């Protein structure tokens, strides 16, 4: 419109100009004329004025035509160009500008287009570089995390608020040992991304260590680490080595967080102090006895002593000698039990060791190994490399010197230890030969080892001998090997079982700082959630229905943490109605022997600490939890969000807000539904899809989400 007005002006301007010229020229001319001249001119104008007007109109038309052309070529084309350029400047529209107007303007448009291309290219390059850089970072993080997870030392990395942002598998195992409910939460209530380390360590202790480190940093110490030993609530003795996490720059002294390397020294400490005490007690007793003996013996030197007195002294001597012998026997019995070799031994499933030995012997020319009786449950503490070498070398020498073709391996327990036997049929050998075999460096074909069988046995604090089974015409070498202790067995078993590499880190949490804002004011995507589900015997907790399973998972830093989950069957201490079994799939025999709700709920409560609870149809689950508050003494007073209500708020026109229906709408794959944990996982995924939809509706904070849920129609339903 604006353009049209200008064009109109451009067209009218020559007319106005001509009219002005005619009027001004006419008036000037008129004023200089005498009266008769004026009359003549008026007559002329009357007669021929039309010609003048026509000429004027013609000139106007011509001028207007010329001007409008110029206007189009220059003014309006330039304006269009400007407009198009502006749009591209303000947005990232990449479409080329259409050249229009005069040649110079067309050139200008082409130049702008070139600039536009350059910009696009630069942007693309930049985006590519950013993507590449972040891929590198992700890769390096993953590599670091992978490295950490393989470490046998337990490592926990925290930000300055004490929130855990990395931990490895060993740490998880260690925390399991610290857990007061190890069988239930498995330490997951203590360790987890975003959880506070202060639930394990006293805040002051950690603060103190941090201050020490900070002081050392300021002094410019090369390795500003601190160490502390603490007892945990579960009575374990932990030694923690703390190192700082500094800023990215080499000389940046500011602290961003800290790394804890943890050692559970309870067992070592107990063993050592028991050993020390035994030694100390023995020394004192021996001193006393020797004192008595020595004094008595020295008294006997007295030649004037009466016979009766002499007898008394002799009685003292015989008494003390007996006491000493007894004490030494006791000590010896004790210390052989405690005797541990200093050589680092690994825990290994006995059956694995036997299988490896079998492979090793089968690989030797002309030899074959079979297995006899194997106790599959035995865990050994062995130097497997050395031990396999010893077995192979013995088998090889049997083949080489006694033409034995087949050997058999056996493994069984013998009290505190295990017997590992290498059995063969046929010729036996004399003891001297065996002693030589034991003492000589091991040899397997051309391969020799600096070690002897005896060295290997000594490493294990074990024994080695050979025996004949006369009845079966067989002979065997027997290794007496130490067993792994029960706790170590558990640790190793867990290590073996876990297959895939878990998500044990989230460095983005470095940035997260303890918010002083009230929970309700915090953004939904920053909060930590416990998403849970329960399976129950029925729908009416007030009429005696009970929880039979609780499953829960965590959302930390906007990501679902599948590894940090909680799943526990509960003995409801009542029958499970047959009608409900198809729904939850839990048979009565599955809950038999499971812990009761009194034990499970406190553990679950700890698992939920400092988080917002999320459940589908939360009111139902909360009723069950709340009815147990009095009995278990734990109160679930965290904020609660209900995915059912939120879904209804986001999609009010949908008929169904059943979990399956929502999951289908959001394209969430439903796996293992109708186990408590399976449902909790689905709920968590649904919840994470709901958050951006809520944000689109202007619901950003927890408070707003809770308000919205309350307003929702479904909120008025009573369950």
């Amino acid at each position, binding site marked *: 419109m604006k353009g049209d007005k200008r064009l109109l002006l451009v067209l009218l301007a020559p007319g106005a100009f001509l009219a002005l010229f005619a009027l001004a020229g006419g008036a000037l001319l008129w004023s200089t004329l005498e009266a008769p001249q004026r009359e003549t001119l008026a007559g002329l104008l009357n007669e021929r004025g039309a010609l003048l007007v026509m000429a004027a109109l013609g000139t106007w038309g011509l001028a207007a035509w010329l001007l409008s052309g110029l206007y189009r070529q220059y003014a309006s084309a330039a304006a269009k160009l400007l407009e198009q350029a502006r749009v591209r400047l303000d947005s990232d529209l990449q479409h080329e500008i259409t050249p229009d107007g005069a040649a110079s303007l067309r050139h200008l448009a082409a130049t702008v287009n070139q600039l536009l291309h350059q910009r696009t290219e630069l942007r693309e390059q930049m985006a590519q570089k950013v993507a590449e850089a972040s891929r590198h970072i992700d890769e390096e993080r993953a590599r670091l995390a992978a490295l950490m997870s393989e470490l046998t030392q337990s490592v926990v990395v925290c930000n300055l608020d004490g929130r855990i942002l990395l931990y490895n598998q060993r740490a998880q195992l260690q925390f399991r040992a610290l857990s007061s409910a190890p069988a239930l939460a498995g330490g997951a209530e203590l360790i987890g991304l975003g959880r506070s380390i202060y639930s394990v360590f006293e805040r002051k202790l950690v603060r103190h260590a941090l201050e020490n480190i900070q002081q050392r940093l300021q002094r410019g110490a090369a390795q500003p680490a601190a160490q502390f030993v603490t007892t945990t609530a579960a009575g374990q003795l932990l030694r923690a080595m703390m190192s700082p996490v500094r800023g990215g720059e080499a000389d940046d002294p500011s602290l961003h967080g800290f790394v804890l390397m943890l050692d559970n020294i309870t067992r070592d400490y107990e063993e050592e102090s028991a050993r020390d005490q035994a030694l100390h007690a023995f*020394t*004192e*007793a*021996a*001193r*006393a006895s*020797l*004192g*008595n*003996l*020595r*004094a*008595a013996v*020295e*008294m006997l030197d*007295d030649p004037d002593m009466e016979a009766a*007195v002499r007898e*008394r*002294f002799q009685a*003292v001597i015989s*008494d*003390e000698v007996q006491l000493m012998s007894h004490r030494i026997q006791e000590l010896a019995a004790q210390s052989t039990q405690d005797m541990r070799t200093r050589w680092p031994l690994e825990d290994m499933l006995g059956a694995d060791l036997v299988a490896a030995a079998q492979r090793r012997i089968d690989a030797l020319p002309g030899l074959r190994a079979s297995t006899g009786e194997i106790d599959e449950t035995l865990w050994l503490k062995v130097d497997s490399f050395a031990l396999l070498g010893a077995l192979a070398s013995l088998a090889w020498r049997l083949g080489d010197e006694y033409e034995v073709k087949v050997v058999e391996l056996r493994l069984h327990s013998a009290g505190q230890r295990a017997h590992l036997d290498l059995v063969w049929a046929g010729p036996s050998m004399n003891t001297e030969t065996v002693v030589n075999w034991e003492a000589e460096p091991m040899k397997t074909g051309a391969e020799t080892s600096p070690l002897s069988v005896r060295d290997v046995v000594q490493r294990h604090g074990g024994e080695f001998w050979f025996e004949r089974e006369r009845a079966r015409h067989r002979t065997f070498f027997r290794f007496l090997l130490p067993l792994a202790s029960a706790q170590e067995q558990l640790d190793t078993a867990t290590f073996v079982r876990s297959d895939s590499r878990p998500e044990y880190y989230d460095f983005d949490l470095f940035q997260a700082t303890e918010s002083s804002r009230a929970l309700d004011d915090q953004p939904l995507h920053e909060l930590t959630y416990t998403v849970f589900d329960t399976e129950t015997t029925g729908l009416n907790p007030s009429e005696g229905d009970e929880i039979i399973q609780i499953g829960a998972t965590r959302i930390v830093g906007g990501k679902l943490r599948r590894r940090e989950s909680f799943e526990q069957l509960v003995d409801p201490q009542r029958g499970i109605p047959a009608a409900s079994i198809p729904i939850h799939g839990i048979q009565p025999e599955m809950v038999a022997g499971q812990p009761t709700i009194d034990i499970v709920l406190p553990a679950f409560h700890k698992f939920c600490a400092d988080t917002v609870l999320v459940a589908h149809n939360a009111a139902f689950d909360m009723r069950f939890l709340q009815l147990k508050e009095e009995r278990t003494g734990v109160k679930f007073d965290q904020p609660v969000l209900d995915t059912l209500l939120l879904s209804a708020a986001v999609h009010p026109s949908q008929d169904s807000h059943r979990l399956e229906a929502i999951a289908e709408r959001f394209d969430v794959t439903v796996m293992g539904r109708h186990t408590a944990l399976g449902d909790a996982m689905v709920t968590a995924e649904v919840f994470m899809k709901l958050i951006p939809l809520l944000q689109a509706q202007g619901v950003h904070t927890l408070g707003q989400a809770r308000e919205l849920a309350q307003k929702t129609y479904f909120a008025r339903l009573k369950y």
Partner: protein
Amino acid sequence: MTHRVLIADDEPNIVISLEYLMKRAGYEVSVARDGQEAIDAIRRERPQLVLLDVMMPKKSGFEVCQELRADEALKGTLVLMLTAKGRDTDIDKGLGVGADAYMTKPFATKDLVAKVAEMLGAAK
């Protein structure tokens, strides 16, 4: 005059030797079997010197020694601690609570007799 020596030890096997030894050296000897008995005997008999064991029932030698040193009347009693507790820290503690000398078992009887004689001689 004859010095009186109290032997405070709960182990008869050492008491018999000590008693014989002290008597042979010419001292007047009495015996206490635990810490409380030792205190009572010291109050009653006022021995010049006590051979004091540390590990005794009822009261330990350390306690007995402290009680002696706290009591104006008994303060001058010489104490020779005679014990199987042989760590540096035990010896320091013994001397710290006021023992005049400390001997660790096993000891040579000659040395003991010499030590007792030296202590009593110096006290004269």
